[in-house]
């Protein structure tokens, strides 16, 4: 499977990554190389879905419903690039507008 520049643009949009026009051709070429390389897995037949690998314990350990937050040595105000009246602040939504 090859990857074209439209696909690279689409994926960059999904990943919210700006790619400058000069970097773009090189990036498409490198991504093409990588995609071609990993497509070796096509050589193997597909198996049933349940045969997927599971790292870690077989089942998740649940936590008791007790108030026990991890303490913060630094507050949101101290970490945030922009913080007003106790709130994180970002530019207007613009193209991301939702309800």
């Amino acid at each position, binding site marked *: 499977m090859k990857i074209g520049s439209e696909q690279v643009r689409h994926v960059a949009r*999904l990943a*919210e990554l700006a790619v400058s026009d000069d970097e773009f051709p090189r990036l498409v070429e490198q991504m093409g190389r990588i995609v071609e390389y990993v497509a070796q897995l096509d050589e193997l037949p597909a198996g049933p879905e349940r045969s997927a690998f*599971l*790292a*870690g*314990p*077989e*089942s*998740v*350990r*649940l*936590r*008791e*419903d*007790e*108030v*026990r*937050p*991890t*303490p*913060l040595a630094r507050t*949101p105000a101290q970490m945030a690039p922009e913080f*007003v*009246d*106790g*709130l*994180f*602040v*970002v*530019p*207007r*939504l613009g*193209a*991301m*507008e*939702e*309800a």
Partner: protein
Amino acid sequence: MSWETVIGLEVHVQLLTRTKMFCGCPNRFGAEPNTLVCPVCLGLPGALPVPNAHAIRLAARAALALGCTVHGRSVFARKNYFYPDLPKGYQISQFDRPLATGGHVDLDSPERGRISVGITRLHVEEDAGKSIHDRIPGRTAIDLNRAGTPLAEIVSEPELRSPAEARAYLTVLKQILLYTGVSDCNMEEGSLRVDANISIRPEGATALGTKTEVKNMNSFGNVERALEAERQRQIALVEAGGRIEQVTMLFNAGSGEVRPMRSKEESHDYRYFPDPDLPPLVLTPQWIVEQQTALPELPDAKRDRLQREYGLPVYDAKVLCSERPLADYFEAVVRAGAEPKAAANWIMGEALAGYNETAVFAVEPARLAALIELVKEGTVSHQAAKRVYPELAGNGDSPKAVAERLGLIQVADTDALGRWVDEVLTAHPSEVARFKAGEAKLMGFFVGQVMRKSQGKADPKGVQPVLQERLSK
């Protein structure tokens, strides 16, 4: 052309846990912004999620109450998208292996009688934070207190056929969820949210039309209004030769209109995959049975039982079962000795008005039962009892003591009654003569006069025999 409407609803409810879904922060509404946060729900580098056992328990109970199959193995998945109030850039949810599938909600459709609407699935996920758009001009402010709150998402099959039916479904769904105590289902506070999918098709067609999504409805009434508006819009569009586009419509409560979202978003590609930070959720059959057993009696079953056990009419049973505390109160009053129909009447009348306002019952079951007993024995008239009732709030006095204090004890003593009767008969000699001459309906007049003379204290049941006896002399 006759159009059929097809509606499916996605309801999100916040679960009543002490802590958030994946961290030990308090799950509380109304705190100072960004104070109920920690590395996990802030999405800080290096933080990891650990699921809340009680959230799973509540979600499983909700699923069982809705007749779903709770699966022994379900998987948490990452739903990837960017939004300022989504700290990790993904939401931990469930995708192709949800907690539960295959339930139903039975309800009375305003148009079609009794129907059963399928529930496709119920799964657990975490809530996002809150974006506040109008606080600072030209900017969006974000409060992450809500980020990480446990949610159950309940998806219905597209089996609703009208906006009114959608509203009825929501009413019953909320009732069931309140009964099970999994959420407080408060749309104003955001603990219950509704998104709708709606399409139209020619009457009799089987293929589904293109659907639109409708959002931003903040009450069940507005869900109905919004869907009605969108239905009209779709019909008008198609009848004018246009085609429905798969867009998201936002409801405006002020205008009652729906409009498409401004952004021409390509539909989201959420790139779901199993969350590698969370092994599968495994629930034993035994545990699932325990949750089923822990379920309270549900509304339909309680309604049937109230009718059977107490001989209540359907209407009364429905009203009393509309909320579990009402039904519990009713049964407590009956257990304290009151006759069921009388108890039902009093609760649907006096008690309900107060409960709707304050969410508590002003009078404990034992004292309401005692009051009802006083009326039954004739110690006070029904009218008088209604004056006693409000006086019972805020103190521990017995109804009898209050009635006495207010001078409302009915007099049934024949001597006293006889005295009043004599006074009345003496005062109305011509009516007496007319009665003795055959105008039997004057009995009502005499009873009324005795009641007036006694200032309402005479026991009406005792007055008539005394009058009869005196007038027959």
